[in-house]
């Protein structure tokens, strides 16, 4: 019994010594838990919930009663910092803002509302984002609460003509039916799996070839460094798209997920997302020569990004500085764009900003990655 334990100890010590000797692995091991701990700490603050959620208000009725109601609504919504109200002149403009993620709900005060109120009962229409169940619930509850308070005020005639009735709120989404929570989480999972899969493959693609010596074989041929880097990146992108297709099919068959948008636009966003990540990955791993260190660095890049990019929780839940960090990485644009198209049938004009950011990200990271790769392999 003593001997196997001694051997176990010897093997464990060798493994740890080996690990300790490679600085990149060591640094990643220490930094990763610190990063994750900080992220979770700030994502779930002990002192409250999401505030200053942007919502749109559209007024189609110019009656005095409606104008008074809107003023009260805006005051209550912004008082205490729950919502930031942005007024739009038309429903289509507000819906576009909703698709683009600029606002999370649209409150429509329809034409004739004032008259309806005077007859006893009026209905206000609210279109909610539906992109994230957590945020959806917060927004719905918040708006419902404001209208309940407004009803109390109406009943007590506070600032309203005494003849006014009550307001009911009709909540609806941009997509028909009552989609399940998973339908909203699924696009995030799909985008994450595809992009992260590509990134992990990339770490292997470069470090493995360098370790095996086959990279030398390629470098000795009359091929430009651009072709080498882009060839490898494209291989990852194709792999990513294939795995994306498989995941989407499984989500549809097993979990009843529906695709409401254009599949080509979805594929384009995924493709650009993978490319942007690949460029970033090449930069990050060009400083290490072995596979394990490359994988550790990738993990350090991936793990925090998964939690701050709006896959599981709304980006709004993050403190402002962490939100800004999230917007510095491509995953948040990939997830937002992909989800908008898949779940909300967002057209190109609604996600063009995500597409452009991913495109710029890809170009910039590759513009850095290619000369960096050249320098690292020939230095």
């Amino acid at each position, binding site marked *: 019994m003593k001997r196997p334990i001694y051997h176990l100890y010897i093997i464990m010590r060798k493994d740890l010594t080996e690990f300790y000797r490679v600085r990149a692995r060591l640094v990643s091991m220490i930094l990763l838990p610190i990063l994750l701990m900080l992220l979770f700490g700030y994502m779930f603050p002990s002192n409250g919930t999401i505030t200053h959620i942007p919502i749109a208000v559209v007024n189609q009725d110019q009656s005095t009663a409606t104008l008074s109601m809107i003023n009260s609504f805006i005051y209550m919504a912004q008082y205490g910092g729950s919502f930031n109200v942005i007024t739009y002149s038309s429903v289509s403009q507000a819906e576009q803002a909703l698709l683009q993620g600029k606002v999370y709900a649209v409150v429509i005060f329809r034409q004739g509302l004032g008259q309806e109120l005077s007859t006893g009962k009026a209905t206000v229409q609210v279109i909610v984002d539906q992109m994230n169940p957590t945020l959806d619930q917060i927004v719905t509850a918040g708006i419902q609460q404001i209208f309940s308070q407004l009803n109390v005020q109406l009943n007590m005639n506070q600032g309203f003509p005494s003849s006014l009735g009550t307001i009911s709120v009709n909540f609806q989404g941009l997509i028909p039916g009552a989609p399940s929570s998973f339908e909203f989480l699924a696009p995030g999972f799909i985008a994450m799996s595809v992009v992260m899969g590509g990134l992990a493959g990339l770490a292997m693609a470069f470090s493995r070839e360098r370790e*095996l*010596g*086959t990279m*030398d*074989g*390629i*470098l*000795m*041929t*009359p*091929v430009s460094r651009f072709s080498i880097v882009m060839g490898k990146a494209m291989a990852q992108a194709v792999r990513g798209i294939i795995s994306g297709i498989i995941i989407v099919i499984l989500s549809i068959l097993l979990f009843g997920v529906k695709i409401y948008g254009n599949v080509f636009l979805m594929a384009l966003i995924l493709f650009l997302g993978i490319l942007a990540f690949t460029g970033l990955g090449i930069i990050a791993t060009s400083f290490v020569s072995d596979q394990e260190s490359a994988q550790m660095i990738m993990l350090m890049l991936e793990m925090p990004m998964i939690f701050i990019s709006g896959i599981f929780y709304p980006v709004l839940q993050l403190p402002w500085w962490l939100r800004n960090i999230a917007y510095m990485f491509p995953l948040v644009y990939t997830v937002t764009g992909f989800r908008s198209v898949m779940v909300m049938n967002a057209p190109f004009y609604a996600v063009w900003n995500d597409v452009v950011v991913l495109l710029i990200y890809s170009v910039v990271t590759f513009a850095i990655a290619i000369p960096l790769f050249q320098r690292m*392999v*020939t*230095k």
Partner: protein
Amino acid sequence: MSYAVEAENLTKYFGNLIAVDGVTFKVRKGEIFGLVGPNGAGKSTLIRMICTVLRPSAGRAYVEGYDIMKQSQEVRKLIGVVQEKLILYAPLTPVENLEFFGKLYGIEPKVLKERVKELLEEVKLIAVKDKPVGTFSTGMRQRVNIARALLHDPKLVILDEPTNGLDPQSVRWVRDYILNMKNKGLTVILTSHDMYEIDELSDTVAIMDKGKILEIGKKEDLKAKYKANKIEDVFLELTGRGLRDEISGRLRRRGW
């Protein structure tokens, strides 16, 4: 032009460590040039510079008249390299491996197909051309590796310890093949720790140590100069008989 390679004051630094220290030498066309030295002497770094994989810190070198720094693409077309590490993809078959590299060299698909077949016949692997290289013995893989280096009809073939780890039959085959390359008019740079191999195959021998070329000359001239029967004796005379404690540059910089 009578020289396949001309190097002038070629130098390579890794941080503060000097791996190749102002090396000057010439390799005649059509000869087998043996490059020997203890571990860490700088042979592989020198070869990687000539192959255009590493950028020299100083000095110049020309392959068939082409500057390795300014005309690296031309140089790559002229060199075939067999490294100690096999430059092959284990899951791919010999045909797939060769076709992949052939395409990178820009060989026309039709010509490439013929060339691959011809080479696989030459290295006696045509029967297993559709099996993954990963299932091959080390000797078989080295033969595919040699075929890969010759795909694009190079003028200069660099073999970095090509017989390392091979069984005696494979070693004999590789050595005969190297002589065959010379007979076909190719220039060969050969590095090896096997002094018998260098003695048997080389026309000219360069002995390197600590980044410098200590001696260079015709094999017979060197033996005569050092009154030695074998190149091994010349080598030991110049580099010493004591055991070496060479540490790679990277570790040395870390202060281990």
